[in-house]
């Protein structure tokens, strides 16, 4: 098969996943923007195709395009027979001034160009990163070739370095796409990664356009797309880019849940948690930290069961871990020396943690001093935004990385050098929610005088938390240039 034909097959697989995912996501995306729905559709579709693939593997049948399409048709048909929940209030459209229109177009053009660059990077040669060859791609290729999940993938001592404990959604997604006719073409399969980037940017744009302003959404999409440390060729074939999508979806779902509890918001929490946990171990950590944040912020909520709903973020990772455990049995984590947590070795921990923290706050932070200073100053000069509750989640996640590096089986400094920036930058697209939710309404007031603030289209039924965000302005602004909240 020629490369263009292989690209076409894989693109068809991505599109089929999107359609199957749409038929699931339509039940919990009512009230969201179309862009958000598209992002949820891809994430849900990857999960649906992974489940369909597992069914094929379980029956010993080689998965083919026709099989996936038949399964997708069943899913769509069943979905269409069930009445979709009531749509939430549509987003209110304010008048856009020419300055806002120009800013919007400029930012979206930047995001579009950045996607094109990542697509060129990812598709120009077969995927080659070490993690692809040794972990994600290797597992996918073995599954594709053997039409099974062979036990040696989890128990062969010769594959001890292949991280047998890792989740399997990335390899299964690659196998599902390969089954659409291209075979195991590891150049064409890279198409999954620009697709995930596009979905991530759509999710960012859609969420902030709905909750803050279109310019804030476009700003987040542009800023995230320029994160070329994440969106570059070496990350094609790994779980970083899909996890960035999962983190954005989970963060957005948590913010919506805090704003207004509803069955749809709860379903999104659960779906995002499952997606994140199925991609990376850091994904499970992220959703558990989100759950802690949701639980903490919901503690004063008068609505019964609201705190318990935070469990929705915990259940999918737990169920996923249980299923993975049944599949692969107990696995040692070769990356970590967990004996350091035993009482006899506790005294070693502070020195190791200090070493790691010094490295992170010293060398690593110093190399990124300009962007870090820009972020810090930006947070100082802008008003709080709706995504600020995420700040402690990001801080806690990075703290957990520091702890993990402290108990590394290898030299902690070597581990930091190899992984810290990569796994931290995976969080950046979700972090742009925090940054761009603080962008003043529309375009800054000094640029023009129009741009109405927007009312939150609440996709749920009940009112939200008694928080400033739920009751007042949804966007940020600058300290010296705030605007009054007015309903149009």
């Amino acid at each position: 098969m020629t490369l263009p034909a292989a690209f076409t097959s894989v693109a068809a697989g991505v599109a089929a996943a999107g359609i199957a995912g749409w038929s699931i996501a339509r039940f919990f995306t009512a009230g969201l923007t179309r862009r958000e729905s598209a992002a949820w559709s891809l994430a849900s579709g990857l999960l649906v195709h992974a489940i369909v693939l597992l069914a094929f593997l379980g029956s010993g049948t080689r998965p083919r395009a026709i099989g996936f399409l038949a399964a997708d048709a069943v899913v769509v048909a069943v979905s269409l027979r069930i009445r979709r929940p009531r749509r939430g209030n549509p987003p209110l459209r304010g008048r856009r001034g020419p300055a806002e229109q120009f800013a919007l177009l400029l930012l979206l053009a930047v995001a579009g160009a950045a996607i094109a660059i990542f697509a060129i990077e990812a598709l120009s040669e077969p995927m080659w990163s070490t993690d692809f060859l040794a972990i994600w791609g290797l597992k996918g290729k073995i599954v594709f070739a053997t039409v099974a999940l062979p036990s040696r993938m989890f128990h062969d001592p010769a594959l001890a370095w292949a991280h047998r404990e890792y989740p399997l959604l990335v390899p299964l997604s690659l196998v599902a796409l390969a089954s659409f006719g291209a075979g195991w073409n590891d150049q064409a399969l890279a198409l999954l990664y620009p697709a995930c980037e596009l979905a991530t940017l759509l999710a960012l744009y859609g969420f902030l356009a709905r909750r803050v302003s279109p310019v804030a959404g476009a700003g987040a999409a542009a800023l995230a797309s320029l994160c070329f440390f994440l969106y570059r060729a070496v990350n094609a074939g790994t779980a970083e880019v899909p996890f960035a999508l999962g983190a954005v979806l989970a963060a957005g779902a948590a913010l919506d849940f805090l704003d207004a509890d509803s069955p749809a918001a709860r379903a999104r929490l659960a779906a995002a948690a499952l997606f994140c946990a199925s991609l990376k171990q850091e994904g499970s950590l992220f959703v558990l930290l989100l759950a802690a944040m949701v639980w903490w912020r919901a503690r004063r909520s008068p609505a019964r069961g609201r705190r318990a709903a935070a469990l929705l973020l915990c259940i999918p990772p737990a169920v996923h871990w249980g299923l993975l455990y049944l599949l692969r049995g107990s696995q040692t984590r070769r990356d970590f020396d967990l004996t350091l947590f035993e009482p006899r070795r506790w005294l070693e921990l502070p020195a190791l943690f200090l070493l790691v923290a010094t490295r992170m706050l010293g060398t690593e932070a110093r190399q990124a001093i300009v962007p870090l200073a820009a972020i810090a100053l930006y947070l100082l000069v802008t008003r709080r935004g709706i995504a600020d509750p995420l700040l402690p989640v990001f801080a806690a996640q990075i703290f957990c990385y520091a702890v993990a590096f402290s108990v590394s089986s290898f030299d902690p400094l070597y581990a930091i050098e190899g992984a810290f920036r990569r796994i931290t930058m995976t969080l950046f697209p979700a972090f742009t929610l925090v940054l761009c939710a603080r962008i003043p309404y529309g375009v800054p007031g000094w640029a023009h005088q129009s741009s109405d603030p927007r009312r939150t289209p609440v996709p749920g039924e009940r009112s939200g938390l008694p928080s400033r965000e739920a009751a007042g302005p949804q966007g940020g602004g600058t300290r010296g240039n705030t605007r009054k909240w007015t309903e149009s």
Partner: protein
Amino acid sequence: MAPEARTRPPVSYGGPLAVLLLVVLAVCLASFQSGSEIARRWVLLKRSIVSGTPAPAETFRFWFDPDYAVFLEAVAERTPAGASVAVLVPARPDAYLYLAVYRLAPRRVVDARWMGEASAVAVYRTEAGRGPEGEPIPHGTLRAR
């Protein structure tokens, strides 16, 4: 003082400063990309669409040793999919082993420690002194057991 001037809001520098800081951040993020690399990859993509997968020497996968691609291809052609292959390859970079395991999958690929369990031993040229003699293949030997 004119009434318009009295009602004019105070000048704030917060907005422009915030936008400027985001621009600084965006520029820092974008600096990880290089124009020449994009141009190189664009040429590579166009060529691979026209004439198929690029040659190993042009790709990052075999950046350290393009000949190794030919060796692995030869081993793959001569061993069945269900075989177990021991590969004797340089220890550094570790990409030698990872590429062998990936390229030869679904075969079980092991390193020298499990050579006794393998149905074939593939020896890359640089490791010729360490392995058993076998049939010459491009850039190495292969011995069926």
